[in-house]
């Protein structure tokens, strides 16, 4: 496809957002099988068992994600809803980090952040950003960044009668939304995505001048929220966030905000486009888009596994877990636990709405979930509004799903008009 795009260099987007490419190979990007039958077998064997999820699936490649590889620890994996639910509800036993988090003097990484904090520290830091990500703030995100991004992207391919939605649409929306909220110019948006997981120091160089500028003159954006937030320490004294604290937040928010929603929106679109009757029903009654998105979160969460570290010995569904071991919660498997859902493998948008682990759970439940939902809702509604007759390209390979610890659609070629 030789489409020109005045907003983003699509060849670069294609390279950075390629599941099987070098950026995602570490998380199992080359995996092309359907993991769900294996997860059903594993859950049936034991809801919690010794081992690492991908190794229990017979995958011998050297891949990993949250909580891996940690070669010096014992590893266990949970596959049932009840086991994952119990772990999420007991963050004191199932901690988000094996050791205390020190943002100030520690290394700048995605995990040396809110992601790994616990207890009161997590509560204090999360409270700084939570108000900017609440349901009531969805309109702020939509009006400032999401709406214009979505429509500018559709402008690029509307006249062509065809598009590859995975790269030209799904990948571009989240990275432009989150970098926009950081005040990063569009031409640097892809630099951010490229550096966030590989060269955190280079990313900090990009945002350093923005942080300094916002300290002087706050604007209506997320980075200004951070520069003007005050956090209280254990003694109750308050201080403005330091540069190190802001960089830690920034790494996490930019990493989580620019990748996950890309894949989840692609999964949602693929699920609907592959079922033309579902797409037609949603196009005719937009109230059905919400259950379609929520069912996508259940049926195929893009991140199907997160890990916890045992702060003390515990028993979980009959399995003894020693202090210091790692528990990998396979929420992809839990979301299709037949004990909770009938016909769990079916993508069925008429299911009664019920909580899933699509955005995780417990105190670390996805901070950006309401923004992610807004991106998917605005994005898919705009496609349905502006591209009548939207359907999979009958002359192209139909989209398939891939990736193990980061799942997504390979490519979504569509035609319309």
């Amino acid at each position, binding site marked *: 496809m030789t489409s020109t795009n005045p907003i983003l260099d699509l060849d670069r987007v294609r390279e950075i957002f390629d599941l099987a490419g070098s950026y995602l190979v570490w998380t199992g990007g080359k995996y092309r099988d359907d993991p769900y039958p294996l997860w059903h077998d594993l859950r049936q064997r034991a809801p919690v068992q010794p081992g690492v999820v991908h190794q229990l699936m017979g995958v011998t490649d050297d891949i990993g994600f949250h909580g891996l590889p940690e070669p010096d620890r014992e590893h266990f994996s949970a596959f049932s809803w009840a086991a994952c639910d119990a772990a*999420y*509800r007991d963050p004191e036993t199932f901690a988000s980090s094996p050791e205390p988090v020190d943002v100030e003097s520690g290394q700048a990484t995605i995990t040396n952040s809110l992601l790994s904090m616990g207890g009161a520290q997590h*509560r204090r830091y*999360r*409270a700084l950003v*939570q*108000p900017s*990500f*609440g*349901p*009531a703030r969805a309109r702020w995100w939509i009006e400032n960044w999401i709406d214009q991004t979505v429509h500018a992207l559709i402008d690029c391919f509307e006249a062509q009668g065809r598009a590859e939605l995975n790269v030209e649409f799904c990948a571009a929306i989240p990275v432009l939304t989150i970098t926009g909220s950081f005040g990063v110019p569009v031409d640097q948006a892809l630099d951010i995505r490229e550096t966030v997981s590989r060269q955190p120091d280079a990313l900090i160089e990009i945002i350093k001048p923005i942080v300094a500028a916002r300290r002087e003159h706050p604007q209506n954006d997320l980075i200004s929220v951070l520069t003007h937030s005050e956090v209280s320490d254990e003694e109750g004294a308050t201080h403005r966030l330091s540069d190190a604290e802001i960089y830690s937040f920034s790494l996490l928010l930019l990493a989580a905000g620019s990748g996950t929603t890309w894949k989840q929106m692609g999964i949602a679109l693929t699920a609907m486009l592959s079922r033309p009757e579902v797409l037609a029903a949603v196009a005719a009654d937009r109230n059905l888009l919400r259950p379609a998105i929520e069912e996508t979160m259940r049926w195929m969460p893009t991140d199907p596994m997160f890990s916890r570290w045992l702060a003390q010995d515990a028993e979980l569904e009959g399995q003894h877990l020693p202090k210091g071991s790692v528990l990998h919660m396979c929420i992809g498997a839990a979301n299709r636990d037949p004990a909770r859902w009938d016909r769990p493998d079916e993508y069925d948008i008429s299911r*009664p*709405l*019920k*909580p899933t682990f699509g955005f995780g*759970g*417990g*105190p*670390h*439940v996805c901070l950006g979930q*309401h923004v992610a939902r807004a991106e998917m809702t605005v994005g898919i509604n705009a496609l349905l509004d502006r591209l009548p007759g939207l359907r999979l390209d009958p002359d192209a390979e139909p989209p398939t799903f891939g990736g193990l610890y980061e799942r997504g659609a390979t490519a979504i070629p569509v035609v319309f008009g």
Partner: protein
Amino acid sequence: MPGAPRPTAIHVDRAQCMGSGMCIMYAANTFAHDDETKAVVIDIDGDSLEALHNAVEACPTGALALVYESEGV
């Protein structure tokens, strides 16, 4: 759940509430956030009983409880 009794109150543990907005996601006519991003009940009859159960279950810190009159609270 037709015929099931409705709660007479909904208890919000403000110390536990972290402002995730999960309750608003599942029962938007019942819950809202106040100025401190803590959940507050705006209309106890705003949503179905099923939606209330979803909100309670989805709360990431277990900060919500449905209260029934017979419990004498």
